[in-house]
């Protein structure tokens, strides 16, 4: 069967809220939400690992529900509230999960990290005090090939213990070049490379 030119098939305007912002995009019915986010809107934080729902790298929250965006059609996002990894940090700073991932060294190559952060966020939203078993079961839909999961699980458990306010203003220690002003001396000693208890 000879394929015909597809460019002129029905395109749809989709209205949605992404990371709290009203956003519109145009897509063909066949396009996945993943494709729309990455190529249409330019939010490349959500990743493609397999495109058939088996790795979780494309996880986003849709109306509060954890989904594989490679298995959601773009048109299904009409009227929905979408959260991607780009929406996890707030004006006050990183989400505790992001902070914990940095401090616990829960990422190596980082390609699976957006999916894990979104998935873990969904877990903590509904179960703020999970056990190790809860965390491992919930995250079984996210594949990581670098870490062996140990430090990821520890980071999620640590984030559950952190109070939201404690995550403020840790940006300085993640290497974005701002002066080391606002953090506690303990955090400074731990993360700016001096031996513990010194300097």
């Amino acid at each position, binding site marked *: 069967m000879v394929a015909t030119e597809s460019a002129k098939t029905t395109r749809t305007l989709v209205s949605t809220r992404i990371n709290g912002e009203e956003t519109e995009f145009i897509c063909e019915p066949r396009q996945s939400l993943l494709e729309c986010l990455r190529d249409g809107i330019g939010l490349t934080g959500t990743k493609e690992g397999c495109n058939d729902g088996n790795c979780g790298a494309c996880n986003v929250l849709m109306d509060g529900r954890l989904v594989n965006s490679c298995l959601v059609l773009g048109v299904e996002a009409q009227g929905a509230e979408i959260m991607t990894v780009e929406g996890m940090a707030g004006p006050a700073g990183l989400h505790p999960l992001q902070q914990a991932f940095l401090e616990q060294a829960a990422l190596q190559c980082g390609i699976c990290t957006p999916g894990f952060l979104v998935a873990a966020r969904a877990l903590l939203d509904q179960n703020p005090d999970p056990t190790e078993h809860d965390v491992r079961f919930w995250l079984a839909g*996210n594949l990581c090939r670098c870490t062996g999961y140990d430090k990821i699980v520890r980071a999620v458990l640590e984030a559950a213990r952190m109070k939201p306010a404690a995550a403020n203003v840790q940006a300085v220690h993640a290497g974005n070049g701002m002066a080391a002003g606002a953090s506690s001396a303990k955090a400074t000693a731990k993360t700016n490379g001096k031996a513990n208890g010194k300097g």
Partner: protein
Amino acid sequence: MVTTARPRTAPKTNGNNANGNGKKNGKNGNATGVLTGSNIVLTNGEYNVVGTRPVRHDGMDKVTGRAIYGADVKLPGLLHGKILRSPHAHARIKGIDTSKAAALPGVKAIVTGADIATGEDRVIDLGEGSGNVKWMRENILADAKVLYKGHAIAGVAATSALIAEQALKLIEVDYEPLPAVTEVRAAMRPDAPLLHDGLTTASLGKKTKKKSNVAKHFQFVLGDPDKGFKQADIVVEREVDTATVHQGYIEPQNGTAMWGQDGNLTVWCSTQGAFAARDQLSEILDLPVSRIKVIPTEIGGGFGGKINVYTEPVAALLSRKTGRPVKVLMSRADVLQATGPTPGSYVRVKMGATKDGRIIAAEAEIAFEAGGYPGSPVGAAAECVFSPYDIPNGRIDGYDVVVNKPRSSPYRAPGATQAAFATEQVVDELAQKLGMDPVDFRLRNAAKEGTRRIDGPVFKRIGCVEVLEATKRHAHYQAPLGGPNRGRGVAIGYWFNIGLPSSVAIHVNDDGTVHLVEGSTDIGGTRASIAMQAAEVLGLTAHEVRPSVVDTDSIGFTGVTGGSRTTYATGYAAIEAARDVVRQMSERAALLWEVEPENVGFKDGTFSAGRKKLAFKELAGKLGKTGGPVTGRGNVDPKGQGGAFATNIVDVEVDLETGKTQILRFTVVQDAGKAIHPSYVEGQMQGGAVQGIGWALNEEYWMNARGEMTNASLLDYRMPTSYDLPMIDTVIVEVPNPGHPFGVRGVGEVPIVPPPAAIANAIAAAIGTRLYTLPMNPGAILEATGVI
């Protein structure tokens, strides 16, 4: 005068808890106490920065989704490229008709093997190994034959990915299918279908003129193994078969290329080595390296599988034809079917011991599936197979064999895991027959400094004994394990680690911070480990050193991020560059103080001459007025890399009804020489262990009779998930490598070597039956126990 950074205090034992606070328990590193805790560092010397756990410099971008990986690259006018791949495992290509595809609106260019000049049968140095140019080109786009299902045949560039995919369906290829062979011993038989008409077996330099799928045979002999076996009181001989497995990185391969009308080519890709990619592109495309710029993006895992190029040359050819940038992304199915997995193998190991527990002779035959083209890591396997042991008589034969599977690529300590799966089971059986504790038996025969390996060279300072001793002391090894169908296994692995050149430049800023420019793609935290080494020399904090990973135009030649070399070699270059900075700044201080430069000392971040002192930061502010900017450089090609040993202790429980093996507890003990950033060393240990667990219990390529992979998805090529595993406890032992200023040994690869063998030993202890085939999946266990 430059003072080399030295440890500040005497060796201590650090017991670290899970979130990395260095809680010293005050134990001496030589004590015989039990080792407890999830992540232990038996540290050998404390420093200001080295050995601490700062947040990595690129961490912020990676947890916020801002980091740019290869598939995220966007350029104006971008076209999308897709690749047509062979459905046959072995076939001649009689003709390719692209006319219908070219007529599809939106298609801008099509390329086939005809667009690559025929490669000469010549071998070039790729830095981490050599490559045959003809075969490299044929693997990118097939010439007269396809040698595996998934072999690339043509590339299409179009205005959308969908149109490019539709165009692939319109390309007509006339195939003459040929019989396929997909298993190593079958491929070695004299009646096997031959993949390459001109391939004859080369036996270490001697061309035998024998047409064969065996491309290479080599042999190591030490002493007199036949006599040694006669003198042995106990001999155990076993054969193992291991299935093909894939590196399994979560990010598929990608490449974006812009070949301008001025003849200059720019490529963006996720690669383990921008310079290795540049060299390959130069050879494949017949373009001088001066005209090629490779910009390494962030990379989503490699493990050796992203050293060879796949999509980049096709994207480049399409760009040349269209005059526009072209991006080619691989699908997951293509990744599994067309990028190099690690070889499936056959390994035979025979070992003989005297009744007082000394291994007196060893023999191995190792045959590896190289895939469609020769070049498997069978040589590396031979260098590792018996290397944890001091054995006076040995013989190792290695065979590199082509089969109709994708051309193999390195996978984390390539070859060593297959070899250890055989050796460590034989060692376990010998220990059992002798009535010896398995760790004690290994200690009795452990390789040490001065031990001669069967492949010939003598070990320098190594940590084999220390790793085994720490294993014995670990609470896991001493904990009772009760319950039916439960068992404990141990194994040890070795990897030699490599050197290769690296180049680093350090620019001093007038606020006392420095910018560090390097060319090693950061897959596991090496921006941090490299910056920390420079910081230690300069007396700065880790975050006062600001590292960047740059493209091939912007730094000197740097070898791949692989081979466990990055923290060692690029770190070494950073140390040299930092020392160069100190030298130059000492001259500036001398100028200011009107003394001779050799009278200026530098210690703890301060320059001094007599009573005069200036902190690094203060002197940095004066550079503009004392001669201009200071840039330090370090170019190294170090030869003192140190090999590494790792052991596993694993407890399993086997369900005899379903055949499923549950990992109850897992501990990795490894010699890192000096752990620059212990969290990322632990990460390598844990990640490699889990890849090994997947290899042991489940991963394999299911090939049907036509040579097609039938499980080319992450559903059916199933890798371990968080729910399959417990925590992976770690012990870092530090036996310093004399070939590095801080004692660093490579850590990335050895963790994957012992797990399958340790798990096999644990299963044997649990159910009284040994498995000699990988994977040891439920079906294999039920067959071995006679249930099915």
